[in-house]
């Protein structure tokens, strides 16, 4: 195993251990941040290929609703099974939509993916069986028959989130170093040349799209398990905009960027909201502008700069 992998696993174990002593609000916030981090990890794959999806909320929401609906109708509360179901459903949908979306680039990709998430939003808002705009409550999950009632329920979601982020993080880290991963950056630079080299651009993008959908579905499923409530807002375009925001903030240069970005984002949002409930969006917007202007490679580029200085 590579050193980075060992370090990451050690960090995950430390995060799990820290979860035992953390106050409840912090556990909850970190769980949501990690779940969003999963979605953004998927977005990172697409953004590396130069495709910005303004519609990851589609899979985020679908994953969450799969957990909620399956919990109600399939009479299963097994957390792992529910998560698997969410991922399968998202990949199945992405396999169809992806065929269409792979033909689009730039703002057309962004707008088209946004349209699909708005279609889901439109359907959910009008479906009274699923609580319309109010959404509905998700039944408390079980893990291998263990019912973490009351106090330890958020702990379970947190544990699942840490494990999922670690697994997906290692996967993305290795994927970006594989030929397929590098093909993404080549596509961003010059698509036609990549075609001349004998690589199917559409296939590379399609696979990335499927992976991104799976990760977004997983993130949505964990959010549903942790929050215990879901609503159509998860498919609204502002949610997808948030993911793009986080990806930019964290930086797409490294697999750790999205995770770091989403934790910072969640902290920033919580505190901005607490300090001034009327201007928290203004604070977020200003932060976004500052990052685009002064840190175009995200917060992670700061970390890289520091480690390089230490190494030098």
């Amino acid at each position, binding site marked *: 195993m590579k050193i980075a992998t060992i370090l990451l696993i050690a960090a995950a174990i430390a995060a799990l251990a820290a979860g035992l002593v953390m106050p409840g609000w912090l556990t909850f916030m970190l769980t949501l941040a990690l779940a969003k981090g999963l979605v953004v990890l998927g977005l990172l794959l697409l953004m590396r290929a130069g495709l*910005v999806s*303004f519609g990851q909320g589609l899979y985020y929401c679908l994953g969450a609703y799969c957990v909620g609906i399956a919990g109600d109708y399939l009479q299963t509360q097994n957390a792992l099974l529910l998560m698997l179901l969410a991922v399968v459903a998202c990949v199945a949908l992405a396999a169809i939509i992806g065929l*269409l979306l792979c*033909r*689009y680039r*730039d*703002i*057309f990709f*962004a*707008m*088209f993916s*946004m*349209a*699909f998430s*708005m*279609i889901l*939003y*439109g*359907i959910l*808002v*009008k*479906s009274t069986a699923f609580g319309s705009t109010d959404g509905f409550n998700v039944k408390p999950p079980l893990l291998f028959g263990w019912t973490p009632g009351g106090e330890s329920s958020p702990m379970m979601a947190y544990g699942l989130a840490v494990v999922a982020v670690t697994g997906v993080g290692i996967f993305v880290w290795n994927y970006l170093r594989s030929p397929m991963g590098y093909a993404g950056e080549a596509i961003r630079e*010059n698509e*036609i*040349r990549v075609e001349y080299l004998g690589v199917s651009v559409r296939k590379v993008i399609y696979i990335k799209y499927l992976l991104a959908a799976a990760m977004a579905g997983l993130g949505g499923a964990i959010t549903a398990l942790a929050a215990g409530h879901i609503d159509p807002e998860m498919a609204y*375009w*502002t949610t997808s*905009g948030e993911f*793009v*925001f986080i990806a*930019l903030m964290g930086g797409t240069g490294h697999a750790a960027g999205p995770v770091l970005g989403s934790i910072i984002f969640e902290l920033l949002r919580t505190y901005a909201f607490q300090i001034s409930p*009327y*201007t*928290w*969006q*203004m604070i*977020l*917007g*200003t932060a*976004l*502008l500052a990052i*685009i*202007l002064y840190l175009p490679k995200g917060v992670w580029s700061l970390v890289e700069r520091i480690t390089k200085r230490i190494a030098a």
Partner: protein
Amino acid sequence: MKLVIAMLMDGMIYASWLFLIAAGLTLIYGVMRILNMAHGSFYAIGAYAGASLVGFYLAGGYPPWGAYLVLLGAAIFSGIIIGLLVERGLLRFMYGRDEVVMILVTYAILLILEDVIKLAWGVDAYFAYQPYTLLGRTKLVGLSYANYDIALIFISASICFLLWWGLNRTRQGKLLQAVIHDRDTAAFLGINVTRMFTVTFVIGAVLGTFAGALTAPGISVMPGIGIEVIILAFAVVVIGGLGSIGGALTGALIVGLARSASVHLYPEAELFVIYGVMAVVLAFRPQGLFAIATARKI
């Protein structure tokens, strides 16, 4: 028969409203290649400015017909101010960046403006229904329509004509077309591209605030209206082809009629149908109906 007429009328009213919003968005994109998310905020600012000023005006006991002038004045005034502020104060430092980055920049502006609106006008709803009810209603084959809504169709049509005429039949419009086709060559030929950008952006912003001010009497003006509207406007301009005024008109008509058909026949699909139409159009015409083809670079 009655149903068909009702569908057509509702569709036309909705389409004219959509066109008012989409026109500014597509104009700015056509000239500057900026897909301006903050356009929704311009719309909201126009609505707030219109509603609050009409409220002041009528509370002063002035003749009620003047309220329309107040609406118009509020739209133009707020549009010029916000357009100049955003373009001169921020966007001009970002020119030349990637289109996707520009989306994010305008997204940040949208977030900031949302709170500026809350700070300036508070979170309570504003009502300015007087201009809406003042014009009365008309019966059309047994269906009652507000004259204000019917007037909206004519206003929208005249704005469409004005834009077409300004772009195709005036000297400044021809210069602008040169900028649209090739920014650098236009600059070589001595066209002041920077000023063209500023003027275009301000006109686009005024179109946005104008749409908001015209809508204000018919709705309750409250936080979040800009966020809802921008996504509709996107659907309209993407269907028609980004940057094309004729495209925005076609897109507005398609979306307007599709929505009203759905509202009358199958109301559950109201939101679905707008984006469904967009998805179908994009599936067959990836750049939209009226987009200009672009060359691929090797």
